[in-house]
């Protein structure tokens, strides 16, 4: 694959919670239209890495540049930048007092200040894109987990982000609902979205990832194309982790 320009550039990223250092110097470039897949044991810092990339977590040191804008610079309007960085959470985090349409419209109305009619049009298109045009009027409790996660994806996509961060998007789902979310993610990828995905769905990684990162104890241990990481890892730690995952 020919590589596009760098969209997300992370340098020397460190993050500590109190005395424990959770990220110990992460360097990472994500190119336009690239899908970077992140694996690693629980507690290795995957979520923290994603959350630093939109400053839901404040990095302790290092630099993060998104689409040419320094995330950490004083002059950066973080709220303006965040709509360029979509995020999808393990627990969906939909707003239960709003319909699916309301969930998608909120930021369009309050952040982008779109008039109601235009916001609704964009929101309906986003819901249609994730296959939920007919669920616009439903509240989250009336939707299955898979549908809720797709609404959450639509909520991020509607803002026309440059890059999307997925933090274990299918881990909270019943097995039979995982497929619909992965299919939605595949479509996003095919439409050219740049994505960083933390997940245990190795089948998805093999089929859709350009690059797989293996993280352990706050460091990137190894990275490469899916075939290398899954079939012929160089590092012993990677091999042990992949074997353990494959056994499941």
């Amino acid at each position, binding site marked *: 694959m020919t590589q596009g320009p760098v969209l997300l550039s992370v340098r020397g990223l460190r993050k500590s919670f109190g005395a424990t250092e959770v990220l110990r110097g992460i360097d990472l470039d994500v190119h336009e239209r690239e899908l970077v897949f992140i694996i690693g044991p629980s507690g290795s810092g995957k979520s923290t890495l994603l959350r630093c990339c939109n400053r839901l977590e404040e990095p302790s040191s290092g630099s993060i540049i998104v689409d040419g804008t320094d995330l950490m610079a004083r002059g950066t309007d973080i*709220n*303006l930048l965040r709509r360029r960085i*979509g995020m999808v959470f393990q627990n969906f985090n939909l707003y239960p*007092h709003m319909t699916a349409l309301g969930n998608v419209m909120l*930021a369009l109305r309050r952040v982008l200040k779109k008039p109601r009619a235009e916001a609704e049009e964009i929101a309906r298109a986003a819901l249609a894109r994730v296959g939920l045009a007919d669920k616009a009027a439903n509240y989250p409790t009336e939707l299955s987990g898979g549908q809720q996660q797709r609404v959450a994806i639509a909520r991020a996509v509607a803002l026309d982000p440059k890059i999307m961060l997925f933090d274990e998007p299918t881990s909270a789902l019943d097995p039979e609902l995982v497929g619909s979310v992965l299919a939605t993610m595949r479509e996003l990828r095919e439409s050219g979205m740049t994505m960083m995905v933390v997940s245990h769905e190795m089948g998805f990684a093999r089929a859709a990832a350009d690059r797989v990162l293996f993280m352990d104890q706050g460091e990137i241990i190894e990275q490469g194309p899916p075939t290398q990481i899954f079939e012929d890892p160089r590092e012993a730690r990677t091999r042990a982790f992949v074997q353990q995952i494959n056994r499941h």
Partner: protein
Amino acid sequence: METLLDLRDAFFNLDIILRASPILISGFWMTLKLILTVVPLGLLGGLIVALLYTVPSRAVRWPLIVYVDLFRAFPPLVLLVFIYAGLPFAGYEISAFAAVSLGFFLNTSSYYGEILRAGIESIPRGQVEAARSTGLSKWQAMTWVVLPQAVRNVLPDLISNTLEVAKLTSLASVVALPELLFQARQAQSLTFNATPIMAAAIVYFVLLWPLVRLLSRLEHRMIASH
């Protein structure tokens, strides 16, 4: 039969009602005015208290805890008398209405504040993070995501507290504010008859009963939905 008639004359004396009605009506208006002053002010103060609780700073939190604890522990009657009778000694002349409003503000904003704080804390953090990840500011997330749900979650407590406050406004009679109870007692001592007190009791009931009903229905609905 004789005693029943006596009772009627003492408690439901139509003649007395007619004579006392102007003073009772003025008392009713004063009570209403008091409730409509004290409840919105208390809610506003409570909202500010609850929002200040979300500020992660000790310099904010400690004074807040002192404020809330102090005015929740203070008996409201003592507070009213203290403000009304005490402030003039410090050189501040204050009207009965202002004294009562201030006393109730200090008391009710503390209670409303604790209730709203519990409501705010009942909303999962993840929702705020999702809102912030789409570019909403802290205040926008609070306004559009947290508060609507928080208020709904603690609505029975808010109404229950409002009822309490409405009832407590009768304490104002102690500092000679001519509200309903004060006026009824005036009328009672002028007419040597308990009918004005009875009338006041009925007015309180009619005024507050709709809130009681609403509360009861909400509580049933909350139980049913859990």
